[in-house]
């Protein structure tokens, strides 16, 4: 109390200045600068921390979204090079893997390779076709860099286009080569012509099995083969008989060549098979096996022809727009299916083009009006009594501006490039989407998709090849692929399917996330069905009925359970619970029933006991009487299970009449669903154990936090403990209980290790309680190590993560709204 510090009040009026001087603050009122500084610092630390948390969560969200976004973008295309082709009207244009050295083939014997950058002059390569022989039909297989040609003498040959790197002066140059393999006689055209000219004396087509060596094409040396077979007669007939369309498919030990012959004004369809003798050293040389004339089975003249690489079928389109699918069955060609892709078209039903999609299972048909439809081989369930593998309409694309004038199929995926006139369209078969479409400023005569799906090229009418860079890293992705029902090749119909990796190059990833979402929901539901009743009743019992002394032990024990590592639970589930439970399902069912009945029975008996004896038991300890009963019932249930199985779950083999008391068998034959050892029940059970402590702890807290006054009021009004709990405590605690459920739900949705270990991780979509599943979170855990960075697969896993994130976000937001609503309803207490 130092009064000298404080200026006396009489001082102030004496000072004339209007500005009042601030009185010095007594030391005891001063705040230490350190205190202020710490206060300031902590304020900021807390601010930064709080904002940091928000920023971190948003940052994670943004990062995941960033990783996912490219999946939903289309293709982008940039002009790269323009190459002027000196060859007029090339029959085939092709491009190397890097888009550096495109080639043109004139349809006879000349190849020209052009430097895409225009630095080097075109390289001209001539193939060693015998003098006087002319190529009448060609087909280019871009994935193999090979061409099949047919000559006017009825020979067939294969041209390999090769790109060899050479080093000159330390610089790498790529040199294009084209080599013709051995020419094989395919059809004796002069004889055909003679037969045509003089049908009366016509000899039948050469007998099947003529020993004419055919090449599989690869191992033949570059040396030009001498022109075999007699081909000198009937020169006059050559003008009228020629092969106009050819296609070839080669398997490991057989090959099939299909050809359309023009004989005078008529067109005929021929099929020639080749066979290789198999020896211990593998397949040997191909030899001509059989010749077939299939013209008689067609209703109109054949116009187009496809042979799949499996070399067991011919697909022929005729002038009327009818497509015939011939399947080789032993020595016969069976007309397995005949269909009209554009039967419903009002105008022309003719087919402008038909081409295989990569994999040779789907065919794109282009109609005269620009329609674009995809038919795929499958075993449809409908209209297919013999369950044969036939073509069915699987996809329909928006029509082009006119009949397709060019077509190119990707050699990496199910994309194809087509168009009409100036229009170019890059489409993806599986997802039925247009990746890119544009009207270019020139008429397109041919289109090419680079081998690596990184380049596109278009040849215009003035023979300029426009090379584009294609940027489309995720063509198979898209909303359709993730959330739509897609008809994948080979399946009987559209379905949700997830299979991200496969064994072969032709494998197409199936990326539907629906089975994973389903798995997450199924796992969560199983866990919650198991956990919620137990956790909530336990919470109500503990907070309202249990002896407070005991509660002090029970509560922390449950809290410790919540921190049990889920990997331990998963391990237990997979290696301990699953095998034991596998053949004891009837026991579990019995125990479930007994456990449910036990408290009812006990309660009934308890109420029959006179009150004098009941008083003997302290309130909150009644459970100790029931516990032995419960244990005994469990033991009884477990041991009675096998007998129960023999009564209720017997499968009788319809063939032998043998009876099997086996729940798994019974389930399989009664419900049609499978029975796996690691199934949803085990997951529900074990994940329930992870969820129960969380729900229990939070629900118990909220129940215990209900103001004691309300409980007292209720009890004082003569309500029983249960009436008080049910009518008064539960409604008020409902907001907290709801939170508990939501947090439990969030835990179950995100739970990974238990699901990974305790299920088979098969992305199934069924309601079967005894089958496994794959959840979004388990999918990420299982597949992330094998997903290359920035690949579609990698991004799809991130999409799964984003979905989980959003799921939790939406559930929690909804929960918060509901919780606030409940809290609002019961506020003021």
């Amino acid at each position, binding site marked *: 109390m130092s009064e000298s510090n404080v200026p006396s009040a009489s001082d102030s009026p004496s000072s004339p200045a209007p500005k009042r001087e601030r009185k010095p603050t007594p030391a005891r009122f001063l705040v230490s600068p350190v205190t202020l500084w710490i206060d300031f610092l902590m304020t900021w630390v807390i601010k930064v921390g709080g904002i940091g948390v928000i920023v971190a969560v948003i940052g994670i969200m943004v990062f995941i979204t960033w990783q996912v976004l490219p999946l939903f973008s289309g293709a982008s295309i940039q002009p790269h090079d323009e190459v002027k082709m000196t060859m007029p009207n090339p029959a085939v244009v092709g491009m190397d893997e890097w888009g550096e050295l495109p080639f043109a083939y004139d349809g006879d014997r000349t190849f020209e390779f052009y430097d895409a950058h225009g630095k080097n002059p075109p390289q001209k390569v001539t193939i060693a076709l015998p003098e006087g022989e002319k190529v009448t039909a060609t087909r280019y297989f871009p994935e193999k860099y090979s061409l099949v040609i047919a000559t006017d003498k009825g020979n067939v040959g294969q041209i390999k286009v090769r790109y060899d790197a050479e080093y000159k002066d330390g610089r790498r140059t790529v040199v294009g080569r084209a080599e013709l393999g051995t020419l094989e006689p395919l059809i004796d055209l002069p004889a055909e012509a003679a037969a045509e000219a003089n049908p009366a004396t016509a000899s039948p087509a050469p007998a099947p099995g003529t020993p004419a060596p055919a090449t599989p094409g690869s191992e033949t040396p570059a040396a030009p083969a001498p022109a075999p077979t007699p081909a000198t007669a009937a020169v006059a007939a050559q003008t009228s008989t020629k092969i106009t369309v050819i296609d070839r498919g080669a398997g490991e030990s057989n090959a099939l060549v299909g050809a359309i012959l023009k004989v005078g004004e008529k067109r005929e369809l021929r099929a020639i098979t080749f066979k290789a003798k198999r020896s211990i050293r593998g397949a040997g040389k191909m030899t001509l096996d059989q010749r077939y004339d299939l013209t008689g089975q067609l209703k109109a003249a054949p116009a187009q022809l496809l042979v799949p690489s499996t070399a067991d079928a011919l697909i022929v389109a005729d002038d009327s727009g009818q497509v015939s699918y011939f399947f080789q069955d032993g020595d016969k060609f069976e007309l397995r299916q005949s269909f009209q892709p554009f039967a419903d078209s009002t105008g022309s039903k003719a087919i402008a083009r038909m081409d295989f999609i990569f994999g040779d299972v789907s065919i794109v048909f282009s109609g005269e009006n620009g329609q674009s439809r995809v038919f795929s081989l499958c075993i449809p369930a409908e209209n297919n009594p013999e369950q044969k593998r036939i073509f069915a309409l699987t996809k329909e694309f928006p029509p082009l501006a006119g009949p397709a004038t060019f077509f190119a199929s990707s050699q990496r995926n199910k994309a194809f490039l087509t168009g009409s006139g100036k229009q170019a369209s890059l489409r993806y078969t599986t997802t039925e989407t247009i990746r890119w479409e544009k009207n270019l400023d020139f008429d397109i005569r041919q289109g090419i998709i680079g081998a690596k799906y990184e380049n596109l090229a278009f040849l215009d009418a003035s023979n300029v090849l426009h090379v584009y860079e294609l940027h489309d890293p995720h063509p198979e992705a898209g909303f359709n692929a993730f959330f739509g029902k897609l008809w994948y090749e080979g399946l009987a119909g559209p379905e949700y399917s997830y299979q991200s990796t496969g064994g072969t190059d032709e494998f197409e990833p199936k990326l539907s996330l629906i089975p994973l979402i389903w798995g997450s929901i199924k796992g969560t539901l199983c866990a919650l069905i198991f956990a919620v009743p137990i956790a909530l009743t336990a919470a109500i019992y503990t907070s309202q009925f249990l002896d407070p002394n005991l509660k002090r032990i029970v509560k922390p024990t449950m809290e410790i359970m919540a921190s049990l590592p889920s990997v331990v639970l998963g391990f237990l589930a997979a290696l301990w619970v699953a095998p034991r439970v596998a053949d004891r399902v009837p026991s579990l069912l019995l125990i479930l029933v007994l456990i449910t009945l036990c408290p009812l029975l006990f309660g009934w008996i308890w109420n029959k006991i006179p009150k*004098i004896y009941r008083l003997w038991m302290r309130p909150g300890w009644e459970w100790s009487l029931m516990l032995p009963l419960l244990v005994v019932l469990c033991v009884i249930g477990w041991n009675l299970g096998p007998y129960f199985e023999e009564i209720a779950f017997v499968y009788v083999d319809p063939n032998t009449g043998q009876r099997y008391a086996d729940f798994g068998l019974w389930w399989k034959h009664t419900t049609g669903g499978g029975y796996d050892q690691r199934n949803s029940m085990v997951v529900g059970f074990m994940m329930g154990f992870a969820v129960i402590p969380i729900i229990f702890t939070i629900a118990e807290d909220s129940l215990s936090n209900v103001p004691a006054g309300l409980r007292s009021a209720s009890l004082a009004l003569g309500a029983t403990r249960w009436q008080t709990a049910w*009518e008064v405590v539960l409604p008020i605690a409902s907001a907290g209980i709801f939170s508990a459920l939501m947090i439990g739900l969030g835990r179950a949705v995100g739970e990974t290790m238990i699901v990974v270990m305790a299920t088979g991780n098969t992305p199934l979509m069924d309601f079967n309680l005894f089958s496994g599943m794959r959840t979004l979170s388990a999918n990420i855990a299982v597949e992330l190590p094998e997903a290359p960075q920035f690949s579609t697969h990698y991004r799809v896993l991130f999409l799964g993560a984003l979905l989980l994130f959003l799921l939790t976000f939406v559930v929690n937001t909804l929960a918060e709204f509901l919780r606030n609503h409940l809290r609002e309803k019961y506020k003021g207490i």
Partner: protein
Amino acid sequence: MSTNTRSTDEAKPLTSHPRAHNKGTSSTTTSEEGLIQWNELMPQDNPIPYIRVKDFSFFYGPKQAIFDVNMDMGKNRITALIGPSGCGKSTLLRNINRMNDLVENVRHKGDITIDDDSIYDPSIEIISLRKRIGMVFQKSNPFATSIYENVIFALRVAGRNNRKELDEVVERSLRGAALWDEVKDRLHSSAMGLSGGQMQRLCIARAIANRPDVLLMDEPCAALDPIATVKIEELMLELKKEFTIVIVTHNMQQAGRCSDYTAFMYLGKLMEFGTTQQIFTNPKVKKTEEYVAGKMG
């Protein structure tokens, strides 16, 4: 119950103001511990002893909260329990309907009887005991339901769902709690929208809905403003026609205004028990005098 609460010889003094009757009560004797026996207390009034506390001691674990209390509370009278905080008056009150059983580690000695029935009789269901004794708490504690549902809670839990009966009970109880006119238009709106005084009166209405014999009030006006307090006090004077009321209060004026008998407790012991008039004007025990005069507590 209402039929035998109004015997004609009692009606007259009870309708008058508490201060008006029991004049000149002096013939009470004080035992050595300050315990006052009922029979010697009020010859003129002479109500029926309804609640009798006999040698009652109560323990919270090892701590004894009430020491050998003996007192009788008259039927259709208001008995006030006063005393400084922690003196055991609330504990005694809460023992009458055995609410203290909810507290862990408690035990008691002695007995409390209501209408000569021991509340600790094993054959008595604690639920029916509580139905017989209504209770109003210090902090109003209406349930988070409608006014209507609050009032009929006791009937609901008893399984009485006859709509007509419930309607009658609601009106009678709310009228009894002097709340009817204020809430009759919004019976089905939330009880949370009422003011503090209204809430407390709702709690009283709820407590009397099942027509108990006894009404225990644990500082019912502690959280209320003076106007609401006056209303509750007036209400108590009305209610005692029908119920036996025991009230714990810190408010000397309140005890003086509305109670017929007053018990002063101190450190778990009953120091003095007598008519309100006597306790406030002529206390026999020094502690009582100090407390009533505001020198203590």
